[in-house]
């Protein structure tokens, strides 16, 4: 093992010219090397440097780094005169920021974050019917156009096939399966008050198992089967199943897909139906550059950007004229419930409080 503990990346380019007399066409410089960081696009060095600093776009985004950078890179290639600024953080943190500066917003768009999180704050966003509106089905955009979906995210049950097989337990197929005694204390789930996706999962379970009123019976049984185990971070749900600490977990399809090459991990779309609440994009009300914000919403829902996000990062396109990547079940093959965004947004505090009360009661 190399134990060079202090690392090393060097690498400002050192131009070491070999000087050969006074000829104008002297020998080429000895060499230039920039192996890691910026070699990819040396051609871009000649891109116009004219920078209209007024023409900018400030994006708030909770997206993962890779798809985020890829989309921004593509956007900048198409719109080289727009300077892009980014604030990358969790959805909750970004919404807090937008609320705190709502009198004088500095951001133009909130890109990413579940549609229900955006729907819960209609006062923060402007309505906008994007250029690709015709290609987006009604379930994936707000009725008042305050948010536009960009990538549906079905909720799934993830499971550890190896442990299930060792213990002779059948893989779950439905929400009801989660109530089986063999999964008691073996379900990885995040507290809905801590995670937007866990909240969507709670709403989905309620709606898929009896509706807004009767669905709570299911929730009570589900919480009982959690047996006091709950996480504070949604990413733990799939990680703890993958590690074998838990048999099953409630997570989003995107996270489950990260284990597609792991033969020990599987997932299912619950047979009662699941939600596919999309990651969405909204224009900030009173934003400094509405023109560029609209341009970006159109870009994010464009075929070009949707294709890049699908092909490179396995994200489901929201457009009804595009198919998901071959690795994913087509959305038409998944039973989807009629997710009530208005209810989920309006009753959020009440729903979360009720869940917490049930959970606390189950633990006592």
């Amino acid at each position: 093992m190399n134990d060079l503990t202090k690392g090393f990346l060097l690498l400002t380019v050192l131009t070491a010219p070999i000087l050969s007399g006074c000829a104008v066409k002297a020998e080429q410089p000895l060499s230039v090397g920039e192996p890691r960081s910026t070699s990819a696009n040396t051609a871009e060095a000649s891109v116009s440097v004219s920078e209209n600093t007024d023409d900018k776009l400030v994006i708030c985004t909770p997206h993962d780094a890779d798809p985020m950078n890829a989309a921004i890179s593509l956007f900048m290639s198409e719109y080289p005169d727009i300077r892009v600024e980014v604030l990358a953080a969790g959805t909750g943190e970004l919404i807090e920021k937008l609320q705190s500066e709502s009198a004088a917003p500095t951001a133009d768009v909130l890109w990413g974050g579940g549609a229900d999180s955006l729907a819960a704050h209609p006062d923060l966003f402007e309505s906008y019917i994007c250029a690709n509106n015709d290609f987006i089905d009604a379930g994936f955009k707000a009725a008042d156009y305050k948010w536009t979906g960009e990538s549906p995210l079905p909720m799934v049950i993830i499971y550890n096939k190896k442990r299930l097989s060792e213990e002779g337990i059948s893989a779950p197929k439905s929400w009801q399966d989660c109530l089986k005694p063999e999964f008691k204390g073996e379900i990885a789930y995040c507290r809905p008050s801590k995670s937007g996706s866990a909240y969507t999962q709670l709403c989905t379970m309620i709606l898929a198992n009896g509706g807004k009123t009767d669905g709570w019976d299911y929730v009570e049984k589900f919480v009982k089967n959690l047996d006091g185990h709950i996480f504070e971070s949604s990413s733990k749900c799939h990680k703890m199943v993958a590690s074998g600490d838990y048999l099953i977990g409630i997570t989003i399809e995107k996270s489950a897909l990260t284990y597609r090459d792991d033969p020990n991990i599987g997932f299912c779309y619950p047979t009662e139906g699941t939600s596919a609440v999309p990651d969405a994009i909204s224009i900030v009300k009173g934003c400094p550059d509405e023109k560029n914000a609209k341009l970006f919403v159109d870009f994010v829902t464009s075929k070009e950007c949707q294709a890049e996000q699908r092909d490179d990062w396995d994200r489901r396109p929201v457009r009804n004229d595009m198919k998901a990547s071959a690795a994913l079940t087509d959305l038409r093959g998944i039973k989807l419930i009629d997710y009530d965004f208005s209810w989920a947004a309006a009753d959020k505090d009440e729903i979360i409080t009720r869940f917490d009360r049930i959970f606390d009661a189950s633990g006592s």
Partner: protein
Amino acid sequence: MAFEGRACRKTAFMIAVFCAFFLLFCLPVHAEGTEKRKVRVGYFTLANFQEYDASDRSYRGYGYDYLMAIAQYAGWHCELVPVTYEDGLKMLQSGELDLMNYVYPTDSTGGLSLSSLAAGESWTNLVVPVSNASVSYEDYDAISGLTVGLNYSSQLNSAFVDYCKDNDCMPRLIYYHTEEEVDKALSEGKITARLSSSISDLSMRTVAKFSVSSYYFATTRGNADLLAELNSAMNALKIDDPYFQERLYSRYHSQSVEQQTVISDAEKNYISAHGPVAVSYVTDWTPVSYEDRNGRFSGAMRDLLDLITERTGLAFSFEEAENSKAALDDFSSGKTELMAGFPYDFAWADKNNANITFPLYSVTLQEMSKGSGNAIAAVPQDSYQEFFSRELQGTSYTYYRYKDMASCLRAVQDGTAACVLADSLQTAYYQKLVSCRGLSSREIPGAAFQLAFAASDRSDPMLLSILNKSIYSIGSAKIDEIFKEASQNSQSVSLADQLYSNPGFAGWFYSLLGFVIAAVTSMLIYGRRIHAKNREIEKAAAAKSEFLSNISHDMRTPLNGIMGYTNLALKEKDETAAREYLKKVRISAEFLLSLINDTLDISKIESGKYVLQQEKTNASELLQSITVPIQSIADARGIHFLVDSNDMYHGEILVDSLNPKKIVLNLLSNAIKFTPEGGTVELHISQIPPVNGCNCRIVVKDNGIGISKEFQKKMFEPFTQEHAPQSKGTVGTGLGLSIVKRIVTMMQGTIEVQSEPGKGSAFTVQIPVTAVRETGEMPEAAPENTAELQGRSILLCEDNEMNREIATAILNDLGIRVTSAENGRQGEELFLSAPVWKFDLILMDLRMPVMNGLDAARAIRAAERPDAALIPIIAMTADAYNDDIMRCMQAGMNAHNMKPVDNEVLKRELVRQFRMEDAARKNSGVQP
């Protein structure tokens, strides 16, 4: 015996045959074995990793040294092939190269095999300018407040965003199209941080590191022999010296540079809330810590603590202790929070309830003795007894304990003890004292330790953090310097100690004493001679001060004119009158310029920097360029000026044209200066044998005031002027003739003077010039008008706004369109973003921020576009030494134009360059 003799002969014969056989068959094999394998290595340059200095053709860097070490183990001869990183990979895949360093597994797909061991590790840094003291390392709250510039196409971005999310920090990210735009944004303050894979930029400071990965040597796939040799050599080196790479790393990246101490808000609060930190120090530990004559805590520790106070605001109060035991007692009881001087040893620290800082300085344990017999050792009572005895385990000392170091030394001197044990800083100090006469010091093998500060483990951890940050930022070089200075400046003492500790000083002291006595005696005896000598020195000094006074006066005179007339012009409402004032400003400025040029010339000649440049010159034009301005001056002063050039060669000559001109102009202007109105000044130029050599004789004759015989003897010395009554009212630096004499000498010529006061002077100069054979080529004509400049487009790179304005005005007057750039980078970008052949020429200042003119010229020449190679680039700079001109040419520039800009010279150069450019474009098929 006979048998024995035969046996011996037989044995000898056998040995001889064996040797012959061995030589016959083995030697060639051996010779083959020593022949080194030639390995073609792709060598791309990266700061601190693989560097190449073209000036002395030397290589350096972590990667280079590592390669050479491996080559030694493998028995290779490395041929370093200059490549770019990308080309190197391709050439390695195709087999044109055998080896390359710094290859990542992700870059090695296809055609490459990697070494089994990594050649090093790399990471990415989030860096801020060193001047930014608001962010300390991995201070996530502060990082959240940064605005980070990213290159939108960089692969580093995702890793950085992940890093931020993992650490709950949310800096603002601004995406740019290129690294250059990121640099520019940083220099303009639009962003406060950037990502950098470089750790060699001393103007930036790392505040976070992420994305660590290993890189390897790569060979062409299938070159199994070489790969095996490489792996074997790397393994062998690793086994022989496991820390080789770490030491190499330290060599090229050690933090020895002083940096600003960055204190977090929490630490600032601690400092302001906490009163002075009580520090224990030992009074008997010179030069580490001691009390000076005024009872003040002194020594290296005190100096360091003062520096920490200066950098952080953390104040200290000091508690003396006569020995380390007493100091430790105070420390343990809570009376003090800090120990000034503590072994950097965690076990020792733990035992004493202390937290230790980073190490400060390495010392060894030594014994000072009169010679042999060291079993009985004297140690001061206070020494870190347990610590020392642990360090000295295995030795057989019997310890005698004394009150202090002085007592120990006395014990050794009087024979009670054989040696005294002390650290190397102490022995270095005590050996300088007379009281230690006859004692020598010897290191005790294996007994070494480092000094640090110790903070009480009851103290807030913030104290340790502040101390460590300070130590790190002060840097090892500065700390070393503090300890060395303390060793030299500590309370040494009597003159006797000085003389003893420094034999050189003693010798000098006694010599000086002898000299003073001898000098006094000599003065008495040779008073007159000394008096005379003094007068000579006084005269020389007087000449020099007179020169300084003269030049000061001379510079103030035209400056006064410039300032005075400028003020008048500014106030003047009538344009015609204002123009008259401005003309006078110009006259004064030209005089000031000539004064500066003369002073610089003499300075250049004296420093050996004045180099003659042979170039083809038209003799007639050269003569004309001299006589025209002189004629106007002569006319203005009512002096007849006669020129006789009938015997002159009027064709092309090979000569340094500036210098004959300077010689003749100097002589003629002197002649006119010292010739009264109505007088005559003559210039005779003729060709003299040998004709082939085209030797030139120049005679400048006048009927002016003449030169006294006495002054003729020293007239070529710098700083001298004759103060004859007739010369009253003339001004000058006294440098003109010195310059003439030196230039003539440099040109291997001669100069003579015949002069008589009141009758006039005749200077005769002979210099060699070479005739150029007529080739039928048309000589380059000087431009008669500016027609061919009309409509041209020039890119002007100049950072100084005033200079930019002046140059633009001059060029616009010539009908030239001007696009301006404020630095080399902007110039490069403007050139690259403009349509091909938008610009006809580039005027380039050299000293500019962001990117200098030389780098900009190189970058432009390296661009892949048709006009990059052909567009003329003219340096326009105040850097006017020959070295500077050479550097311009080497950077790919076509000409050098000195500031201040002479309109005529610039105009001529522009015409010349445009003509050459048009011809070049025509030849390359581009319509000019």
